[in-house]
């Protein structure tokens, strides 16, 4: 089932368009990865899906509902969760408080969801009373993802979750992201580490200059000699 589709999105921050009829989408329980060279509009596409970029054309549909005109805050209520690339935790607040803030819009009991997050990231349970600012880069990313999961989203969006973490931590994070997807959440992420990301992707989008260049399964993209030569370093 298609959880999300951003269809033929065209727009920019005023002035020239950055995205040109760009389409990205993801099914429930799957991982879609947006890759591409610097300045390809990867993060911009993500922002467009989340409503942080005004669209001139195209639409965004979440679970069959057109949400193109909604503000980011309303999209969170509709079941979108977004993990920004930087400044994605409350550094002065404890891990537990970060997770509580993630669930701020919920009025029901959040304890169960918090336990699920702690099962997914056991280290967070251990450090629940520590300020998030005192954690390592990889642990912070776990807090950030955990915070986003607290709303029980249908769609989890990650903007370069592995930026600035070591390769070992990166593999670990990818494993967790696969687990998240298997639990029935659609995952859409932007990644610099294209090869590793496409490895775990059910669907891959290669963007160049705000346009879809290649769209295929992760496997097929990795096997495609053109993609390998141009974007994956051979």
């Amino acid at each position, binding site marked *: 089932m298609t959880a999300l589709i951003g269809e033929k999105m065209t727009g920019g921050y005023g002035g020239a368009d950055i995205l040109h009829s760009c389409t990205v989408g993801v099914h429930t329980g799957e991982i879609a990865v947006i890759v591409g060279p610097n300045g390809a509009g990867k993060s911009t596409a993500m922002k467009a899906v989340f409503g942080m970029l005004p669209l001139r054309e195209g639409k965004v549909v979440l679970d069959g509902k057109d949400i193109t005109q909604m503000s*980011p*805050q309303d999209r*969170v*209520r509709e079941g979108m969760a*977004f993990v*920004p690339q930087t*400044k*994605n*935790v*409350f*550094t*002065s*607040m404890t891990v537990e*408080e970060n997770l*509580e*803030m*993630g669930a*701020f*819009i919920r009025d029901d009991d959040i304890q169960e969801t918090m336990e699920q997050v702690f099962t997914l990231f056991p280290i967070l349970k251990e450090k629940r009373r520590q300020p998030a600012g005192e954690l390592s880069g990889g642990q912070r990313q776990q807090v950030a993802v955990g*915070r986003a999961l607290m709303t029980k989203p249908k769609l989890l969006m990650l903007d370069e979750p592995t930026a600035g973490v070591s390769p070992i931590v990166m593999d670990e994070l990818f494993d967790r992201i696969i687990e998240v997807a298997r639990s029935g959440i659609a995952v859409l992420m932007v990644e610099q580490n294209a090869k590793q990301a496409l490895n775990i992707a059910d669907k891959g989008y290669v963007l160049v200059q705000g346009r879809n260049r290649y769209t295929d399964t992760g496997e097929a993209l990795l096997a495609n000699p053109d993609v390998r030569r141009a974007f994956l370093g051979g």
Partner: protein
Amino acid sequence: MEDILNAFVLLSNFVLIPALAYGSQLALGALGVTLVYGILRFSNFAHGEIMSFGAMSAILVMWGFQASGVSIAPLPTVLLALPFGILATIAMLLIVDRSVFRYYRKKRAAPVILLIASAGVMFFLNGLVRFIIGPDDQRVVDGERFIIRVREFKQMTGLDQGLALKTSQGISVLAAIVCVGLLFWFLNHTRSGKSMRAYSDNEDLALLSGVNPDRVVLYAWILAGSLAAIAGTLYGLDKSYKPFTFLQLLLPIFAAAIVGGIGSPIGATVGGFVIAFSEVTVTYAYKRFLAYMVPDSWAPEGLAQLLSTDYKFAVSFMILVIVLIVRPTGIFSGKTL
């Protein structure tokens, strides 16, 4: 031995107790500055006048109570009027926010522009307060003035030195403990308090989490207004109420907030006492204290006073400058709640 006791009592009477009371008042004032800085992200120069407005409102209501014979003796009547002062201050702040600060907030103006706007509000409030209550000194104190009197203390202990604890001083310290306790409980254990800390820490992420910015700003003004009204009234109760003093009080209050680390409530509390104790210890004349502590032949002829009390505001100014040069983030590395 008795000399040492006498010296200690002397120091308590003239340094410890006054500094604790003054520090409590500064801490309450600095907490308001820090909260507004953390949430609205500008230094609110009007804070001294907000305190003044709060104290004035409480005094006006107090006069009403006194005229109709309502009293809570032995406690000062102004305490009964304080809740009305708090409400009046909050109402005034919400009107000011709506008519001045909100405009610049919606325009996403730079913090310095909000700061200048707050200076405008400061002058306006200063004028308004003097227009309403007049520029003169107002006596706030009534009821039982002392918890411990000098003579009673001497009789009780048999020491040469007396010790006085004014009701206003006791109330100041008690009020500071209660207010700071409640504030920290609110910030650390309630949903609204946590949303304020989150908003102060990382505005964008707080918005993503569904925190309503207007709500957080409203909380900030309510808390700042309450703390300011309490601090202003206590200061008036302890010294006397005069509109002009609050202009001068702005410096030690900002010094307290910055020394502690602006944006940090713990910092503002500690900073308030740091400033108060520095001011009082530096301007106190140690002649009599030394006379008790050292042999007679060593006793100083002068006052043994580091700085005349006229220069007490220079102390907070110097501390402010030193902190900004040596450790600009303050003791508790501020900028977030």
